[in-house]
């Protein structure tokens, strides 16, 4: 096609470069968070994720032991211990926030009341005093350290357990699967009737389905919530399954009808001539042939329900037992706004399933998009 355009080598290079730039631009946001989800809290706070492969330098403080930790040694009282995490190297240390890097490793520094503190290069410290310590709170020792690059899965372990994401994962599955399967069934029958059966009002129904495609969901929240409360459904899984089924139906019917209309007329006519009932035609011929369209819609609906926040917030309630993953993520953004190690790991757990589905079934997704937009509009 475009190849006809007397392609020059320079142009090919330019196009390849442009494509590369595009891909990098579009992947970098996700990639940055992915990398961050494998770094520990201190690393994330100390340096940008693009510095992950390099040794990072950071300054922080650690508290020395308290009076409970002291032991007599000759006529001195001593508190000792280790300050560094595995892998860290000590560059400098200090005793005040104003000069956190005042002393070399190995130096011994006199403090008030005849106390003295020394910190060795390996991070072991020794705090000595002529009389017994009385502190109930350990003194702060400031450390400037370098940490070699390190990737960890601790964030994930923590988030799945303590932050309730494991539970939310189950909840999301519970919401998503029935909300994907049930509309397909209902829509498939309706789409068959709209595509291949003659009855008055058919054109009107098709037009209505196209119109309902764009009805804003927001409109439906309050009336339906009231309705669910009135009939005794309240907030719960049954309610959200029904809601998602209703909201997904227009697209389902529309996609499936568009596809079924394109199936060869001869097959259906000859089956009718052979005495097959409509039900048999539907089950034996239409359903198997429509598999690609069914798959397309299933993916759409799955992604949409999985990623939905609004419907889940309204129809499922906000107790920690019922929260879906998007809901947890939103809560974390509010309560743990700066804890990027938690946010990053949580976000990745929540988007991992859609991404898997996306990469595995991209073909059907693209096909569905094209059927939905180019043909009908």
């Amino acid at each position, binding site marked *: *096609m475009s*190849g*006809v*355009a*007397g392609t020059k080598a320079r142009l090919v290079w330019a196009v390849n470069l442009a494509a590369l730039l595009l*891909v990098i631009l*579009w*992947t970098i946001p*996700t990639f*940055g*968070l992915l990398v961050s989800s494998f770094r520990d809290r201190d690393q994330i706070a100390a*340096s940008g994720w*693009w510095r992950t492969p390099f040794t990072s330098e950071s300054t922080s403080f650690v508290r020395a032991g308290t009076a409970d930790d002291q032991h007599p040694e000759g006529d001195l009282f001593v508190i000792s211990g280790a300050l560094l995490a595995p892998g860290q190297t000590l560059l400098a240390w200090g005793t005040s926030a104003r000069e956190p890097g005042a002393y070399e490793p190995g130096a011994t520094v006199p403090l008030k009341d005849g106390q003295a503190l020394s910190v060795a290069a390996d991070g072991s410290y020794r705090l000595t005093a002529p009389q017994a310590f009385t502190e109930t709170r350990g003194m702060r020792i400031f450390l400037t350290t370098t940490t070699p690059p390190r990737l960890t899965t601790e964030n994930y372990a923590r988030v799945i357990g303590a932050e309730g994401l494991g539970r939310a994962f*189950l909840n999301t*599955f*519970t919401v998503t699967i*029935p909300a994907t*399967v*049930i509309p397909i*069934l*209902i829509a498939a*029958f309706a789409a068959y009737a709209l595509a291949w*059966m*003659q009855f008055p009002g058919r054109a009107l*129904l098709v037009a209505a*389905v196209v*119109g309902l495609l*764009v*009805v*804003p969901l*927001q*409109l439906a929240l*309050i*009336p*339906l919530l009231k*309705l669910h409360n009135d009939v005794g459904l309240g907030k719960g899984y*049954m309610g959200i*399954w*029904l809601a998602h089924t*209703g*909201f997904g139906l227009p697209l389902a019917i529309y996609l499936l009808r568009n596809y079924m209309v394109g199936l060869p007329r001869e097959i259906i006519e000859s089956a009718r001539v052979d005495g097959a009932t409509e*039900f048999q035609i539907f089950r034996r011929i239409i359903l198997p042939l429509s598999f690609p369209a069914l798959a397309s819609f299933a993916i759409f609906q799955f*992604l949409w329900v999985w*990623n*939905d*926040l*609004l419907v889940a917030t309204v129809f499922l309630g906000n107790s920690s037992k019922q929260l879906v993953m*998007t809901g947890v993520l*939103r809560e974390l*953004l509010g309560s743990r706004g700066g804890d*990027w190690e938690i946010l990053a790991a949580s976000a990745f757990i*929540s*988007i991992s399933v859609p*991404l898997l589905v*996306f990469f595995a079934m*991209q073909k059907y*997704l693209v096909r569905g*998009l094209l059927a939905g937009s180019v043909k*009908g*509009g």
Partner: protein
Amino acid sequence: MDQLAFAAGTIVAGVFACVAWFWGSNWLLDAAYPARGPQAGANILRANMIRPWLFIGPAVAFLAVYLVYPVINSAWRSLHDAAGRNWVGMDNYTWLLHDAKFREAIWNNMLWLAVVPALATLFGLLAAQITDRIRWGNVAKSFVFMPMAISFVGAGVIWKFIYDYRGEGQEQIGLLNAIWTSLGHAPETWLTVPFWNNFLLMAVLIWIQTGFAMVILSAALRGIPEETIEAAILDGANPWQVFFRIKVPQIWGTIAVVWTTITIVVLKVFDIVFVMTNGQWGTQVLANLMYDWMFRGAPDYGRGSAIAIVIMALVTPIMVWNIRNARKEMR
């Protein structure tokens, strides 16, 4: 685990109920009007009149209850007071006109409408044109398309990380501030910068929607008859002219479809604003404002519904346009 069993049970029950309905009702129909005997002809005719409604019945019921009824109910509520008891006429709408937050929201929505569909379509068109011309085009397409699979909330987290702010003198861990400070500026708390923060939120939606535009426009570009392009090249058109004068005019229809589809997404945009700024610092949009009135503090269903109806009214022209196109197609 219990609830997974519950979900599995629901799937089985739901599938069984659907099948039972379709199969059972068909069977009843055949039993009531058997296609044999002295009245076979009349029976078949009658059965054929009823059968479509058996097929389509559940879907119509769902659509009526879950989409049509709410529209009517919302319209009714928008004419009533907070609790939905007393008729207040157009009060809620006149209140909207004078509410500063509503004006801010509608102005922001207009800004979104002007920027997002245009840029997403433009980037999509460029991406389609570029990726169609290289050997690893499909891989490249996958990556640009990928954000489509990410939830708005997930995207919110991803982008909030980019806009992250650390105090001056500290190392910036947000990409934008890192670039900004390396150019010699002081770091900014981006999401609180009035007016411009709207564009930072829009970037998220553009990032998501470009892939969608690219996929559809790429298919349309491939559908262009080659003769037109060859003829243009023989007449001495350069690549730019081929693209803008020959290709783009031939896919106007598809561009319009992409544009309107994204427009609808923009009109309903909620999650991104909800999780990133919650409408503070001048970033309010209609859907989030509606959520505020319906579910926060002292709920006012009348005002909330009025805002919902405004969103519906904005969507309606596109709805009509879509229906007209679909009807043209059916003929």
